[in-house]
């Protein structure tokens, strides 16, 4: 067994764990009793999906797809700052 088949077998084994954790985070988003609970669950699901995209870029053998990860990590935390500014009851942008 070559090194390529071994990496592909490893990624095929590891993918269901990511899918199960994404679905568990999504259950917390759908249930969440207050607004900050939903926001931190969205943070966690964003970082999880970012790692999942990086692993899938190896699986599809297309290295150009890795540039999506930088944008996703860079914009995932913006929702935190907006909701925090809203909850502190000040104007956004001052």
């Amino acid at each position, binding site marked *: 067994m070559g*090194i*390529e088949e*071994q*990496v592909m077998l*490893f990624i095929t084994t*590891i993918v269901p*764990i*990511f899918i*199960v*954790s*994404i679905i*568990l*985070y999504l*259950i*917390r988003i759908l249930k969440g*009793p*207050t*607004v*900050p*609970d939903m*926001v*931190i*669950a969205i*943070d*966690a699901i964003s*970082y*999880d999906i*970012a*790692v999942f995209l*990086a*692993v899938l*870029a*190896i699986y599809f*053998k297309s*290295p*150009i797809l*890795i*540039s999506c*990860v*930088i944008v996703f*990590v*860079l914009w*995932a*935390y913006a929702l*935190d*700052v907006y*909701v*925090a*500014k809203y*909850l*502190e*009851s000040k104007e956004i942008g001052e």
Partner: protein
Amino acid sequence: MINEILIIIGEVLIAIGAICDLIAAIGMNRFPNFFVRLHALTVGAIGGAFVPLIGVTLLSLGAEFLGVYRFFMAGASIVSAILLLFLAPVGSHAIARAAHRSKAAIVYPKVIDRLEEDRERGVIT
């Protein structure tokens, strides 16, 4: 020889990250209130995203079947890992501070809250 060693180290780091993600997801569903769930978010951000991105860097440095662009892949993934290490605590701290100041999250199993007492007495703002 060096390529196989890099690939094995990368696979071990990705496996650690996946298991940390599963633990963080279970904790996010079972913990009782907002301020306890922040601990699960920390496990999911550092153990579940920073460590496997370093693993992707090492694996793509060693994988020769990806072509010449594997160096681009390694550079992009390590840059995103460092960005995540800086940006994830900023967001979680901002949302925790706002939730405690505006009383948007209910703290149900609570023993004592020194910060709120100090704020009511006017010691800190």
